C-alpha cells in the first residue's frame, strides 16, 4: 500500500489486466458500434421512406393498408444500395447524427474517385459486417477516406435544401403525410365532413340549452369524480415517494443499486405507456362493474404511481449535493441528513408535482368514466350513447367548468409554492 502512487503509474503489461484488456477492446467496439450505428440509421431512414411510399401506393391502387409493394428481396436490395449511395456520395443522416463526415487525408474533401471506391468497398466490408472489426475498415483505407468530426472552420454551411439530410427530412415529411392522409382519410368520411355538418347542429344547439333537471345529480357525479382523483393521487403519493428514492440515479449506486434503478425505471415506463383507460378496462373486469368508481381509482392510481415516481425521481436527481455534505459534516446520521438536507430541497416540488398530477387525474377521471369507470364520465357516456344531446351538453359544460376551476386552483397553488 505504501507505494500506491507508483503503482498507479507503473502497471503490469497492459493486456494482462482486465482493465488493460478492456482498454484495448473498448475502442474497437466503440469504432464498430459507431459505424454500425451510422449504417443502421441510414438503412432505417431509407427503409422507412420506402415503406411509406408503399403504403401510399397500395392505398391508392388497391385500397389496402399494406406495406408490401415489391418482393422482400427487392426491398432489401434497393434499401441497401440507396443507403450505400447516400453514405458515399452525400452526407447521410447517420453521419449527421454521429456528427461525423467523410474526409480524405489532411481533411481534404473527398474526390469523386474516392467516393466511388468507398461505395464499392462498402459492399465487401460493411455488408458482411466482419470488415468493421478492424480499427479502420478496409473500404475506408482503400478509398483513403475516414469519418472525422465535422469541422465548420472556414466553411459556410449550405442551406438545408442543398444538403442531403435536409432533402431527406423534407421528402420524409411529404411522403409521411401522403401516407398518413391516404390511410386515415377516406373519401366517404371526408364527404360527410363537408356535407353533414348539420348533424352536429343539434348538438351545438343542445349545448346552449342545458337541461336543468339533471344538474343536481350531475354535480353529485362530479363530486365522485373529484374524489376519485383525490383518492388515486393520495394513494399514489404514498407509493411513489418511497419508490422515487429507488428510481433516482444519484442515490442508487453500485451494481445492485443500478439493477434496481434500471428494472424500476423500465417497469414504470411500461406502466406509463398504457393509458389509464386500458388499465380501467382491466380493473373493471377484475373488481366487476358494480364497483366502477373503484376500478377507475385503481386505473388512475397505477398510472399516477408511474408518472409521479418519474417526476419525483428526476427532482431527486437534481438536488444540490453541497447541502448533504454540509449536514454530514456536522456529524449528523443518515436520517438526520435526510431530514435536513434532502427533505427541504424536495418537499415543495413534490407537493407541486402532486397538485399537477391531481389536476391531470381529474381530467383523466372523467375520461376513465367513459369505459364505465364511474363518476361523471360514465353519466356523460350514457347520454352520448342514447343520443341525449341536451343532457350530454349540460354535463360537458359542467365538466369544462370543473376542469377550469381545478386548473386555475392548482396553477395558483403551484405558483405560490414555487
Amino acid at each position, binding site marked *: 500500500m505504501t507505494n500506491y502512487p507508483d503503482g498507479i503509474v507503473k502497471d503490469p503489461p497492459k493486456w494482462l489486466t482486465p482493465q488493460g484488456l478492456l482498454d484495448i477492446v473498448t475502442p474497437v467496439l466503440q469504432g464498430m458500434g459507431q459505424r454500425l450505428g451510422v449504417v443502421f440509421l441510414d438503412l432505417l431512414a431509407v427503409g422507412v421512406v420506402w415503406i411509406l411510399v408503399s403504403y401510399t401506393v397500395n392505398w391508392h391502387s388497391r385500397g389496402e393498408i399494406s406495406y408490401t409493394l415489391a418482393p422482400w428481396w427487392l426491398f432489401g436490395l434497393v434499401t441497401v444500395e440507396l443507403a450505400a449511395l447516400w453514405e458515399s456520395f452525400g452526407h447521410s443522416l447517420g453521419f449527421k447524427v454521429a456528427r461525423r463526415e467523410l474526409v480524405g487525408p489532411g481533411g481534404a474533401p473527398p474526390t469523386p474517385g474516392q467516393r466511388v471506391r468507398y461505395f464499392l468497398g462498402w459492399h465487401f466490408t460493411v455488408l458482411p459486417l466482419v470488415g468493421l472489426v478492424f480499427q479502420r475498415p478496409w473500404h475506408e483505407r482503400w478509398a483513403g477516406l475516414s469519418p472525422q468530426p465535422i469541422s465548420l472552420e472556414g466553411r459556410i454551411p449550405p442551406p438545408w435544401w442543398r444538403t442531403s439530410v435536409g432533402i431527406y427530412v423534407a421528402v420524409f415529411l411529404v411522403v409521411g403525410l401522403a401516407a398518413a392522409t391516404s390511410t386515415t382519410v377516406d373519401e366517404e368520411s371526408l364527404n*360527410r365532413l363537408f356535407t353533414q355538418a348539420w*348533424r352536429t347542429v343539434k348538438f351545438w344547439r343542445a349545448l346552449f340549452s342545458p337541461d336543468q333537471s339533471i344538474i*343536481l345529480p350531475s354535480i353529485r357525479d362530479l363530486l*365522485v369524480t373529484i374524489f376519485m382523483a383525490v383518492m388515486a393521487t*393520495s394513494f399514489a403519493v404514498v407509493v411513489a415517494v418511497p419508490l422515487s428514492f429507488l428510481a433516482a440515479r444519484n442515490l442508487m449506486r453500485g451494481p445492485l443499486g443500478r439493477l434496481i434503478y434500471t428494472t424500476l425505471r423500465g417497469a414504470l415506463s411500461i406502466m406509463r*405507456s398504457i393509458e389509464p383507460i386500458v388499465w380501467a378496462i382491466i380493473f373493471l*373486469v377484475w373488481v366487476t362493474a358494480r364497483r366502477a368508481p373503484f376500478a377507475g381509482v385503481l386505473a388512475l392510481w397505477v398510472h399516477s404511481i408511474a408518472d409521479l415516481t418519474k417526476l419525483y425521481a428526476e427532482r431527486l436527481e437534481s438536488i444540490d449535493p453541497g447541502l448533504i455534505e454540509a449536514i454530514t459534516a456536522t456529524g449528523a446520521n443518515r436520517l438526520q441528513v435526510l431530514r435536513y438536507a434532502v427533505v427541504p430541497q424536495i418537499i415543495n416540488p413534490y407537493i407541486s408535482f402532486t397538485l399537477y398530477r391531481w389536476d391531470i387525474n381529474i381530467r383523466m377521471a372523467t375520461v376513465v368514466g367513459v369505459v364505465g369507470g364511474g363518476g361523471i364520465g360514465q353519466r356523460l357516456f350514457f347520454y352520448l350513447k342514447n343520443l341525449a344531446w341536451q343532457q350530454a351538453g349540460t354535463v360537458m359544460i359542467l365538466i369544462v367548468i370543473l376542469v377550469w376551476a381545478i386548473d386555475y386552483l392548482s396553477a395558483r397553488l403551484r405558483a405560490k409554492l414555487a
Partner: protein
Amino acid sequence: MIWGYVAYGVMYLLNKYWWTVPLERFYSTLSLPSWGWPLTILGTLEMAVLCRNLGRSLGLRAFGLEVWGAEGGPPRVGQRLIRLLAWHFSGLPFGVGVLVSPQRAWHDLVAGTVLQPSPPQAARRRAWLSQWGLMALLLLGLTIWLGWLIVHIDIGVLFRRGEEGLRIWREMLRPDFRYFAVPDPVFELRNLPYSILDMAVVTLFMALLATVLGALVAFPLSFLGARNIMGFSPVGWGVYFLMRGFFNVFRSIDTMLWAVIFAVWVLWGRPLAGVLALTVHTVAALGKLYSEQVEGIDPGPVEAVVAAGGSRLEVIRYAVLPQIAPAYWAFTMYRWDINVRMSTVIALVGGGGIGDLLFYYKNEGDWAKVGAVVMVIVAIVWAMDYISGRLRERIT
C-alpha cells in the same frame, strides 16, 4: 376568514351527511334531512369560533393578526376561553360586537385581550403543532375518509376476486400474436380486414397527421394570442381575448369528447374522426403553449429590428422566431408524444386506430389477443416517447 369558513363548511357538510344518511347508493351523497342543514351551519360556525379563539384562525393568519393579552404577552388559557364564550354574544348575532366597537370588539373587552399585528420575527411554534398544520392534517384525513366511502373503496375485492384478476393477467402475459401481420378473419364481418400491424401504423399516422396539422394551424394563431405582438389597441385586445378564449375552451374539452362529436359528424370508427379530434385539441393546447412562449421573449431584439426599420412581419421573422424556435419544437415533440398516447385509445369513442382491436377483443373476452395489442401499444408509445425525448434533448 371567509375562506376558512367555506372550507370548514364544505367539509363539515360532507362529514355530516355520512352520519345522518345511510349510504346505500352514492347518488344520495348530498341529501341531508331537513334538520341537517341548520345543524350543519351551526356546527360549521362553532368550529370556526373554536379555531378563532383557541389558535390563530386562517382568517387571522391571512391578515397577519394575532390575539394578545391586554398587558402584552400571549393570552392565558382562561382569557381564551372567556373570549370564546363572549364571542357567541358579540360575534354570532351578525357581528354586533364588532360593528358597535370596531376598535376593540366586545369579546376582546370582556376577555381583556387585543388583536394586534403579529410581530414579524417572533419565534413561532412549529408548523405541525400549530392549528394550521393540524387543520390541514384533519382536512386531509377527512377527505380520505370521505373519498373512501364515496368511491366505495373495497380492497378486499381485489383478493376475493383474485382468481379472476390473475386469470386476466396470465392470459395477457401469454399474448396471442397470430394476427399480428395477417388480418383476423372475424373482422371480415366488420368490414375491417386489418391486422394489428396495420392498425398500429394507422395509429401512428393519425398522430402524425394530427400533430403536423395542429402545429401548422397553431403557429399563426399563437401570434394572435400573444399580448406583446397584438399591442394594446382595441382591435388587438379583441383578437387577443378571442384567441385566448378559444384556446382555453377548446383545450378543456377533452380529446375523447371531441372524438365523440366528430364520430357523429363523419363516420363512427373511421380514423378521420380521431384525427380531427386530436387536431382540434392539439391546436388549442399548442396555441396556448406557443403564445405563452411568444409572450415570454426578450424584447431587446424586437427593439433592435424595429429600430432598424423592420415591419411587423420582419420583426416576427428576425426577432421573434429565432427566440421561440427551440421551444416550439420542444412543445411540438411533446404534443406528438401525447397524441400517440391518445390515438391508441381514441377508438373507444369511435376514433379509429389500434384501440378498435383492443376494445373489440376485450368485449370478446379474448385476453390473450388483448395482451398482444397492449404489448404493441406499449412498444409504440415507448419508442415514440424515447425518440421525442431524444429529439427534445438535442434541440434544447
